[in-house]
């Protein structure tokens, strides 16, 4: 068999491809030259990032990728979604395989400093909670003393769980699981009394049960999980672009700019902040190294933060998450975009 030739083919072919690529430069320049944004996303998480039957990606994190692509390249479809696993995500970013990582990653001290990432903001405030069967009669996580708990190994949730039970002087038996699907299966099979993960995940899981009414998510939130997009340390201009794309989405909701009324507001809005945001006055885009209509395209792509939330994970979707902490600061939530001036 002389199929060794095959190896050479592909090796040579990819080397040609490799040599023709741009040399190291700013991420913005690279993205523009490539005419495509490489965005690291989850390999599949309900509501946040998932490919549909045709391979089109949709989801809450995916919308952010598309918004950045719209700001930089003028088209929300010029994104290559790079599925990353929990193990490969940060290395993929650090090694330059992706330009931005929007993969429901928790912003923590060590990740921001030690891993040399820059978290540019928070697009979803999550927290760890518990789900139990209703007939267990438990109404508070404080009553879970002695329970068996299904827990994903190798995640921050594992540490949070240990901290929480120790702080409250309770005991538990962990049932280690590998993935969310396995956790659901174990919980349904009765291998554990309680299933713990981020509340958004619990809600999505519960919604998929045949009998969601028989399960409750306990009110206690035992950890802070601010999920946000991350970029590489050191390219501050690129970090600014991603940060202000996110802020533009949040601010647009605050000022009532939606994908539907944006054309009209560009012409008629009298609010100076909206005018600056939409590029009708001042030159904010140039300060980012973009044109003046960048934020317009960002909002046109899949709407403002509220629209994205409602379309992917909001109460009208099967996942049915309430805004909660993720409401605007004016509505009692934590979303607070710095002023556009």
């Amino acid at each position, binding site marked *: 068999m002389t199929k060794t030739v095959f190896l050479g083919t592909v090796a040579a072919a*990819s080397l040609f491809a490799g040599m023709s690529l741009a040399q190291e430069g700013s991420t913005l320049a690279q993205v523009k030259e490539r005419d495509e944004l490489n965005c690291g996303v989850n390999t599949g998480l309900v509501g946040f990032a998932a490919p549909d039957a045709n*391979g089109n990606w949709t989801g809450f994190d995916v919308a952010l990728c598309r918004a950045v692509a719209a700001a930089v390249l003028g088209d929300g479809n010029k994104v290559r979604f790079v599925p990353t696993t929990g193990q490969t995500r940060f290395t993929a970013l650090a090694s*330059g395989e992706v330009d931005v990582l929007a993969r429901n990653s928790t912003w923590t001290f060590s990740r921001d400093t030690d891993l040399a990432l820059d978290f540019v903001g928070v697009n979803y405030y999550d927290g760890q909670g518990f789900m139990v069967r209703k007939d267990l009669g438990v109404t508070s996580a404080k009553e879970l003393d002695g329970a068996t708990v299904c827990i994903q190994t190798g995640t921050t949730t594992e540490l949070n769980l240990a901290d929480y039970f120790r702080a409250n002087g309770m005991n538990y038996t962990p049932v280690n699981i590998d993935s969310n699907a396995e956790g659901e299966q174990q919980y349904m099979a009765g291998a554990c009394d309680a299933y713990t993960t981020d509340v958004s995940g619990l809600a999505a899981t519960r919604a998929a049960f045949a009998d969601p009414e028989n399960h409750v998510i306990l009110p206690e939130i035992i950890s802070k999980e601010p999920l946000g997009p991350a970029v590489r340390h050191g390219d501050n201009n690129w970090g600014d672009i991603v940060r202000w794309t996110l802020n533009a989405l949040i601010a647009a909701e605050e000022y009532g700019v939606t994908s539907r009324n944006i054309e009209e507001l560009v012409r008629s809005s009298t609010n100076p902040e909206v005018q600056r945001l939409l590029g009708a006055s001042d030159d904010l885009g140039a300060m980012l190294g973009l044109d003046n209509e960048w934020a317009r395209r960002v909002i046109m792509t899949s709407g403002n933060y509220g629209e994205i939330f409602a379309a992917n994970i909001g109460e009208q979707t099967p996942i049915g998450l309430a805004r909660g902490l993720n409401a605007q600061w004016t509505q009692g939530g934590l979303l607070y975009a710095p002023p556009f001036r």
Partner: protein
Amino acid sequence: MSETGAQTVAYVRDTMLPAAPAPEAQSGAIKWLRENLFSGPVNTILTLLGIGIVYFLIVTFWDWFAHSVWNAGSLNECRQIIAATWGEGARGACWAVIRDRWNQYVFGFYPQDLYWRPTMTMGLMMVALAPVLFAPERRIRRILLVITAAVTLVSMIALSAPAGWLIFAAIVLIGGLWISERNVLWLLPFSVVFPLLGVWLLWGGSLWGPIFVLVGPILGWLAYRVMLRILPAASVIVAIIVTLLFWLTLAGEAARDAENLLSLSIQSVRSDRFGGFLLSVTIGVSGIALSLPLGIMLALARQSDMFLIKSLAVVFIEFIRGVPLITLLFVASLLLNYFLPPGTTFDIILRVIIMVTLFAAAYMAEVIRGGLAALPKGQYEAADALGLDYWKAQRLIVLPQALKISIPGIVSTFIGMFKDTTLVTFVGLYDPLKSMSDAVRASTDWKGIYWEPYIFVGAIFFLICFGMSRYSMYLERRLQRDHR
């Protein structure tokens, strides 16, 4: 004859008894049951235990299978159908997910209008494999190629392949059948070219790339012929260097220039569009095809008398065998990026194929070394006595026997490697078992489905691996020379 006998024997039968059927206990089903299932207390207990387990499994899972739903748009719809048909609280399998995501399981995210390309590649692969796998069996080849041609052409029409490509596939498939009916060895050149053709068809792009890759070894061969006259000792090394130099320097430029002169491009498909069984089969077939020659070379190197070659082979084999495959995959996907110059793209599937090949080759080398060790020393000595040089002795006497002995081990390695292709899930590629199933579960329609994708993918893997195993048994029978 003896008079005394007639007086002492009271009765002598002088007619034959009519033939009677064998006693109940010694014939038919009862005998079979006795001999195979109840031939002793231990076997009886085991049989009863086995029946009990099978009964338990059927009782537990029968309703789940019996209530299968094949046609639904989402898990909730499945549940509604099951509840409506079998009553509230009934459970059932929801195979509709396979029907709904069938394309994704087979082709991954390959562009839908190009599905015919992988299909055609698989069909052509069977033509390329016919002379390699089924050289002396005309009947098997005929059946195989007729089925392949029919299935490939019908699927290509169903996938609305362009007419030109349809004609091309028909010519190759039917021409392959025609040639195979005459002399199958004439198909070997196609087997040699097929890897390049397959790569081009799967990934697309310019045909000039593969063509100039093919030019490399041809130049190398020319250099070899020239060097044979001038400096025979260095001829092989020079040939290899010429080939590599051509690939690394001239081939890329030449392919681009040729493309500018005469465009021979088809739509290119990026590696991240590959997934599902297309990905598994691509990695599996390339790995199998590449690891066997590499494994043979490593096994010979390890048996070699030359210290340097032997040590290199030992270090390589022991290192690769000592490291889990996942580690190698992580190295391929993550660590390499740090070493390569920034901005370089080194195709991820290619990286994975290289690592899987190296991994399988190390195991292969040890399996084949076992075969080499099993040969009686007399065979080696006989080769020497005939005056054969090293390569001739290996090619004509040692390897044919050693490989024949190693067939079960080699095929086991192949099967193991094919199943290991599912591990690419850890580097973000969409293998059918985990990544693709998780992606399917990540849609709101199918969240909460668990067993059905696993069972489906497992069944397909079983079919392929069982096929390989049966082929190896057939090969062993065919190569049997000891007339036992």
